[in-house]
């Protein structure tokens, strides 16, 4: 079973992501901030990471940056998730090591498709 790490500080959003992805048959581990995300990544070695960009402690950009420096996560799909809609955010995320970018509100079909796309390669 493929393992997905989601890092999201808001409970409701985390439950939504977990429910959708678990129903799709993935094993989901959850972090509530950036620091915990790094610890869980190290312990669980997820196949895909879904990172909210705005989180307390370490934000998504920093988490992605640190993960990419670790050879174990050099090619792991890391997907950014953000409610920010400013121009240039997507480019910035892709330039800083993210594999893909989803904006909130995310449509469930889009989320499922994106995750499957990276995990069935």
């Amino acid at each position, binding site marked *: 079973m493929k393992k997905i790490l989601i890092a999201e500080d*808001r409970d409701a959003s985390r439950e*939504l992501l977990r429910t959708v992805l678990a129903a799709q048959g993935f094993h989901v581990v959850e972090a509530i901030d950036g620091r915990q995300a790094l610890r869980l990544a190290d312990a669980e070695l997820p196949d895909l990471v879904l990172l909210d960009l705005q989180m307390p402690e370490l934000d998504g950009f920093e988490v992605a940056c640190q993960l990419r420096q670790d050879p174990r996560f050099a090619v792991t799909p890391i997907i950014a998730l953000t409610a920010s809609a400013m121009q240039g955010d997507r480019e910035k995320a892709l330039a800083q090591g993210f594999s893909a970018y989803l904006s909130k*509100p*995310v449509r469930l079909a889009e989320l499922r498709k994106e995750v499957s796309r990276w995990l069935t390669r």
Partner: protein
Amino acid sequence: MAHPDHEARSERRFRQLLDAAPDAILEVDQHGRIVLVNQATEKSFGYLRDELLGQPVELLVPEAAREKHAQLRQGYQHAPSVRPMGQGRELHARRKDGTAFPVEISLSPVFLGGERHVTAIIRDVTERQRAQDRLKEIQAEYALEAARTNAELAARNAEIQRANRLKSEFLATMSHELRTPLHTIIGFSELLGEGLDGELNATQRRFVEHIHRDSLHLLELINDILDLSKIEAGRLELRCVPMPLEGALQEVLATIRPQAAAKSQRLRVSTPEGLSLDADRIRFKEILYNLLSNAVKFTGEGGTIHIAITRQTEFAMIEVEDTGIGIAPEHQSAVFDAFRQVGATTKGVREGTGLGLSITRHLVEQHGGCLLLTSHLGRGSRFRFTVPLDPQQRVARDRPLVLLAHEARAALDHLVIPLMEAGFQVAIASQKRDVTHLVDRLHPDCIACGPGFDELLENRADTATLRWLKIPSQPDAAQVLAELQPVRHL
């Protein structure tokens, strides 16, 4: 030998002439003693003639300058010439009461029976200097005032920039804060609707669909408000690149087809092959989507929506025509206003945000195109817009292109159609910040500038190569056309 009478008359005439002169005139002998003065000398210096005659001329010089004056006088007598005295220096004379006043002096040598005398004409320049001083004062006041105004403008400018930055930050924050809860509202209502955690009954499903649909509407509103704010703040940037029309068109049609099918509407598309635009792909799709979804929305069951794309020299012309409810002439300009849906004619169709056409028109214009509406109530509407072609596909211009640069929408509305009917191609800059990039992008044959726009052109490096005319805040179409006459035959 002259006749004594004759001599006396001549002497009198000379005296009268001398006394009529407004300037002080005096003559000094080779020892520097005064030998002749006129009335103006008495008046200027406050001495009587007899008090002056025989006195050294230094009597009329301020004490501090007397010694120097005597030296200069001796030097002059060795090399006399007709010249103004003390060029470039400020000269002063001294009255009997000891007060000094500014003067201008011209000197000429006179030879009298082997003696070298000097005639001096002394002009009191008190008044002139006072005027000059006042002028200098006024100039200084002006300079101070100008500096103060500039400082105020700079401060105001900084304030505006700060306000603009705060507004952008506020928008970014607001947008983020609004989307965050919508994310879960939309997500969970989708999830519930899917019946993932147990099937819903029909009523529950309908309730959930209401939540879902309205939360999507709310999202649409937030996106549109954000876009409109960006447009107003001049922060909406287009990334125009050569892009094939076909792919973008098909993507938009894929979204529109199910909506049209739900109302049994027919979609007819005619487009030339291989057309490539110079446009921002995402925004171009948005323009097309907005017009097509409006057409579907305001056209009844079984109606037809026709999309026709044609190639012009430098533009693609895209037409979206429907057989819908149409828009009455008096409402045709209001449909482009933000937050306006034309109540009486929409017959209960209220699912849009009312911002779509306002944004759409701005997007078209920022691309360098022009959006036009023709409509007949009850028979349907036709929206036409132009988009610049990929530079590789442009051919030589066959009709002159006028860039209408004006902030008043009423003025633009008033001019666009008459100009087009007169054979011009028209592009629009409704905001000052759009002028520069539109001139660069389109190379218009003429720019019709509303108040304030011409200054932007004057400041350009290529200002000499541009042709523009000023138009008033409420221009008259016939007059503008008359002024454009020379451009017509370029």
